[in-house]
């Protein structure tokens, strides 16, 4: 791959003679334009959000009442597994890569991404990866049913035959992420406009730079884990097979060495987005820019030394349990710095509450709730009670849905005028926000209680005392699901009937992207812009 990549670097200049998009389908298939590719990523992730959401609603329908109503446990397991995999790898991650594609070149004052052809490749392998993974659901024996964490030996000795498709799909997603990350790093490090030093970069650029390095570091580890599974399944090795001298616990260590940084991969770019939206609508500069950068870097570093807090109950020496407990709690410090800075940014600001700001404020509040339940889970002796219960489900949904997903919505509403040249309808946007906000809390807040009361996760049926909380959860899930379909209407309405937007669509927004006309021209900055004090690090 390396030679091809280097070739692209040297000769990609030649194919930019035309200065508008090509016509028809070939525009999207062969595009090397960062805006087109960003659009593809964003629509793809929306499609995956709908698919993953459908699976979630199947789960919530079955859990509406105790007993087995609609689906059998085997199919239920496939639903939970694929819901997790599709949302993590198909919805959240590609959405952030899409935002990166759209925004990074504009924010650093570059004409395009550094490696445009590789950019095309890294998007176009994704539909094939997910096509392959979703196709397994229709195969004999069914699709992945071992949980999104695919612990061996569930995913090796006891896996359905289709697991090989799953393994290759994960390989392809990993390759896509690695290529995307290399592209992002190369763009940020080499294509900034003169005068934009590292400590003047917008926060979204900073968070993505660090996220891209996290991806480079952990995606090969994930690839290693699934390759070892492949060998165990087909070539009689025993990496994770105790009978042959391997160890299933080793799988969990390798997986979570990938998995923990992965959760920060899904939240760091969200921190970046929020650090743009809150200053714009508080009409103040971001409070504590430097500390924000160092906080993100510290979180990224700490994410590599906390992985075993996901597996306190597998058996670990006391020293190990203490180490992973304290290192996990340490993450609360830089995260607290960030939350403090966002609140300080709002303090005495002249705030208005347009849709992006509503999502951003909801992010700060609800992500913090998810952070606190994370602290509870970090307490080793308490984790023995919480482990594998709905409390864990409530925790990670609070950081991923009103955390990562809400930040993506904030970003979409915030930069929508820049992308389309039109404003979305504010009333419709607010309706989407309130439906989502109410839906997400009705869905996930009761899960804290059922978890603390002992309801295990990943079960299709449950004891009667959990019936009320589950019914509430299911009602909330359908409200939330409806809100996301409504979001599609808000988008289409905005694209077709929205009012024309100005270059600086929000009066408090700063950054190079707002100096471009709306919609942004096909090629952003053909000549490097001058980085003024006002447009630097908003």
């Amino acid at each position, binding site marked *: 791959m390396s030679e091809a*990549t280097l070739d692209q670097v040297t000769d990609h200049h030649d194919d930019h003679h035309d200065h508008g998009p090509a016509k028809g389908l070939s525009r999207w298939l062969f595009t090397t334009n960062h805006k087109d590719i960003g659009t593809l990523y964003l629509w793809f992730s929306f499609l995956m959000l709908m698919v993953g959401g459908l699976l979630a609603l199947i789960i919530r329908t079955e859990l509406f009442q105790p007993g087995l109503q609609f689906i059998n446990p085997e199919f239920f397991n496939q639903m939970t597994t694929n819901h997790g995999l599709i949302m993590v790898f198909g919805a959240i991650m590609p959405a952030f890569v899409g935002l990166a594609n759209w925004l990074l070149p504009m924010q650093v004052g570059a004409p395009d991404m550094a*490696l445009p052809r590789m950019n095309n490749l890294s998007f176009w392998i994704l539909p094939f990866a997910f096509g392959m993974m979703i196709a397994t659901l229709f195969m004999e024996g069914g699709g992945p049913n071992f949980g999104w964490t695919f612990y061996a030996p569930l995913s090796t000795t006891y896996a359905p035959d289709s697991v090989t498709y799953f393994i290759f799909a994960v390989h392809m997603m990993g390759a896509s992420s690695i290529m995307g990350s290399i592209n992002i790093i190369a763009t940020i490090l080499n*294509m900034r406009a003169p005068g934009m030093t590292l400590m003047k970069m917008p926060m979204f650029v900073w968070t993505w730079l660090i996220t891209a390095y996290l991806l*480079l570091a952990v995606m090969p580890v994930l690839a*290693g884990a699934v390759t070892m599974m492949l060998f165990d399944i087909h070539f*009689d090795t025993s990496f994770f097979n105790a*009978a042959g001298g391997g160890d299933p616990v080793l799988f969990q260590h390798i997986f979570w060495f990938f998995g923990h940084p992965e959760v920060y991969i899904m939240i760091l770019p969200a921190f970046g987005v929020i650090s743009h939206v809150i200053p714009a609508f508080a009409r103040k500069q971001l409070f504590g820019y430097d500390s924000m950068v160092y906080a993100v870097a510290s979180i990224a570093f700490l994410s590599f030394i906390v992985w075993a807090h996901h597996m306190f109950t597998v058996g670990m020496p006391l020293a190990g349990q203490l180490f992973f407990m304290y290192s996990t709690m340490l993450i609360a410090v830089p995260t607290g710095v960030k939350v403090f800075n966002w609140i300080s940014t709002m303090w005495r600001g002249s705030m208005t509450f347009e849709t992006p700001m509503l999502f951003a404020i909801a992010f700060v509040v609800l992500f913090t709730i998810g952070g606190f339940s994370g602290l509870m889970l970090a307490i080793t002796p308490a984790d023995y009670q919480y482990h594998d219960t709905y409390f864990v489900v409530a925790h990670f949904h609070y950081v991923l849905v009103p955390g990562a997903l809400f930040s993506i919505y904030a970003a979409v509403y915030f930069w929508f005028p820049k992308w389309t040249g039109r404003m979305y309808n504010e009333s419709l946007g607010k309706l989407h926000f309130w439906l989502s906000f109410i839906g997400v809390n009705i869905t996930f807040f009761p899960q804290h209680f059922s978890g603390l009361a002992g309801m295990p996760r990943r079960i299709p049926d449950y004891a009667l005392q959990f019936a009320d909380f589950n019914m509430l959860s299911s009602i909330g899930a359908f409200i939330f699901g409806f809100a996301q379909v409504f979001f599609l209407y808000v988008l289409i309405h905005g694209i077709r009937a929205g009012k024309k937007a100005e270059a600086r669509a929000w009066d408090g927004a700063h950054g190079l992207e707002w100096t471009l006309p709306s919609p942004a021209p096909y090629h952003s900055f053909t000549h490097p812009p001058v980085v003024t004090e006002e447009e630097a690090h908003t």
Partner: protein
Amino acid sequence: MNEAGVKRTVRQSLFIVGGMALFAWALVPLYDVFCEITGMNGKTGGPYVYEPASTTPDTSRLIKVSFLTNTHGGMTWGFWPEKGAVRVHPGQLKEVSFFVHNTSDRPMVGQAIPSLVPVAAAEYFHKTECFCFNQQLLMPGEKVAMPMRFIVDRDLPKNVQSINLSYALFDVTDSAQDLVTGGE
């Protein structure tokens, strides 16, 4: 744009990717070494070379060693220890037997995997001979007694008074066809 810079960044990034890929595979032996050093997972070591002259039993202490047996992964054999527990002095060589019975109507191969608690005692538990060092081939209906000889190290920490040794027996017939065909 800075083409040389992009090339350099790509090279550095690929270097990180390659390095982390190697690291992922290196985790496998590293994990074994780590378990061996810390006794994590209660893994006991391989064959121990016993030198009777250098070891005199420490008669001031008596350690209770209990045995647990279980079968895994669809293993149909009977598997049980001769005695549930024995008491030994540290430094004393002791032999116990475990029985296996192939209750099926075909030749099968089994592999026993040991695990020991407390894990802090794992590195002080030495086996000079153990059926777990080899795969076991049993003909249909065959029943054998398998010996296991062990010494509890004299350096066993003072706070350890009892040790539980567990064996999980796995059916490895499919991956050990050589043994089956060679044995017939």
